[in-house]
């Protein structure tokens, strides 16, 4: 199965869209992949992304992916929900339509806590999911280019973008192979 030459898979789509070319390194082993990522990044090559059949521990750090800032957003959504809940209850039961319930004061904070808690959770949960969908660009009918279908089975695919005139494809090819890639392919993706 060892092919010395790159297999060129040209997609002959000629539209007015931008085509991007990727070099794909195929890996079979998780540990080999993690070492390869370290070495390739150390060699100054920018990795576009890695496709994996399952979550690999430590791959985020190896790829240098920054931690998500979603928790900060979540905290702010929570604060919003809490403020909204407290404002709503204090305004409704304290000012807009005061009622005596169970002989308690109009603004009886202990009674407001369950609702405040629920609305905090509701705002946080919905806010997080919606934010996540938007910043990840996940919307209906999203087309995701499949680089190599085997990344859904038992292979890890490392994609490196080829910049015309900048990237030395042959050098990249040998860099990937030296670091344990069993195959190196090329793929053009229409965006």
């Amino acid at each position: 199965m060892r092919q010395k030459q790159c297999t060129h898979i040209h997609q002959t789509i000629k539209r007015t869209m931008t085509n991007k070319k990727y070099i794909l390194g195929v890996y079979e082993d998780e540990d080999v992949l993690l070492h390869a990522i370290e070495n390739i990044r150390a060699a100054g090559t920018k990795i576009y992304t890695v496709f994996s059949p399952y979550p690999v521990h430590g791959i985020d750090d190896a790829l240098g992916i920054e931690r998500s800032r979603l928790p900060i957003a979540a905290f702010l959504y929570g604060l919003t929900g809490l403020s909204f809940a407290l404002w709503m209850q204090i305004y409704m039961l304290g000012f807009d339509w005061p009622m005596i319930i169970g002989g308690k004061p109009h603004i009886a904070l202990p009674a407001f806590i369950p609702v405040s808690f629920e609305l905090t959770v509701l705002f946080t949960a919905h806010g997080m999911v919606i934010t996540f969908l938007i910043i990840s660009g996940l919307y209906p009918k999203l087309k995701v280019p499949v680089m190599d279908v085997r990344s859904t089975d038992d292979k890890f695919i490392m994609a490196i973008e080829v910049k015309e005139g900048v990237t030395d494809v042959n050098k990249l090819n040998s860099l990937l192979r030296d670091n344990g890639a069993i195959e190196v392919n090329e793929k053009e993706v229409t965006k």
Partner: protein
Amino acid sequence: MIEERLSIAKRTSNRFLFMIGLGLVFLIVGIFITMNSTGHHGGGHGEEAAAAAEGGHHAITWVNRLFSNLWLNNVYFIGIAVIGLFFTAVQYVAYAGWSVPIKRILEALAAYLPIGGILLLIIFLVGKHQLFHWTDETLYIKDNANYDPILAGKQSFLNQPFYLIRMVVFIGAWIFFDWWLRKQSLNEDLNGGLEYYHKSIRISAIFLVVFGVTSSMSAWDWVMTIDSHWFSTLFAWYVFSSWFVAGLAATTLTAIYLKQAGYLKVLNANHLHDLGKFIFGFSIFWTYLWFSQFMLYWYANLPEEVVYFQERFHGYDGHYAWIIFGILFLNFAFPFLVLMTRDAKRQMIMLKIVCIVVLFGHWLDFYQMIMPGTLRGESGFGFIELGALLLFLGVFLTVFTRRLASASLVPVNHPFLEEAVHHHV
């Protein structure tokens, strides 16, 4: 994996002995101060409180204050000890791998159980009339002026022989399961193999069932019956959660100290992260229980139920109000806000601060559970409180560190040790 033996410097164990000695000195000084001050100051308050209390209590003296503090600290440290055993059992039943580095700390916490159990028995036998209103025999005599039909109705459960039997059985069961699990754990170190692990799982499963019943009933017996007329179906869980957070904080604090002293090489930020999550989560759980108990009683406003919170919020000129708000801050707001981020849970200094705050917060939680019932408005913070705390802390740390040093800090033949080394969150 290499064995790690903790060696305790002579200086450290002397420091614990010094703690015990200082605690005793403080207790004696505190007793003398309280003895002299209750003469004129406490008199007026005492009469007032005595008049207000049902059943005609005697005035509060230094004896009450002494026994309340001994009881408070003993119950608190027994709780931490039994949580060590409980959490070990949970780890076994859950087939947990992450917790292997802290397993020996959990086991060592339970070393206080025998001493704590004996002290509990002694303090009860000597100081029962100072601590528990229901131990007054005249309450159950029909023609007596003190006759209390409500407590007489509870007599089939709340009588001294049965109470003592329960105390001995509960503590005995905990000590027995601790001995049984610890034996498996030490034999595993020597001989290896999966046999001890599987046996530990079976023992743990039985213990958890036993603990479910005994932890609830011990919380009623040792804490709730101080307010003899009052009851709460949620109270057992409330006490358990307070014990649990304190136990987790004690475990985390020990793990950090050992790590900083160069031990526990297996332990890293990932394990601390998990412990931090436990402290964070169960602090919220404690708050949830506190609030669930409070809100229903506040809302229903039934006199026999709400009296408990009346006493703590408004009673004795708001004597306990600041403690109630204080524990909500120390045990909820503080750990909730400080441990919220991932980075905080992975940093030793942050965890250390939170652990110390939470340990104090839950001690204070037990303070407000016990003191209003035993001392009414006469409690305080002085030499007696500090002395009793130092005394029990010294004893606890002595037996705890002794057991910690008696075996390898890393359970070398634990089947999940390798998994724990590679633990990653």
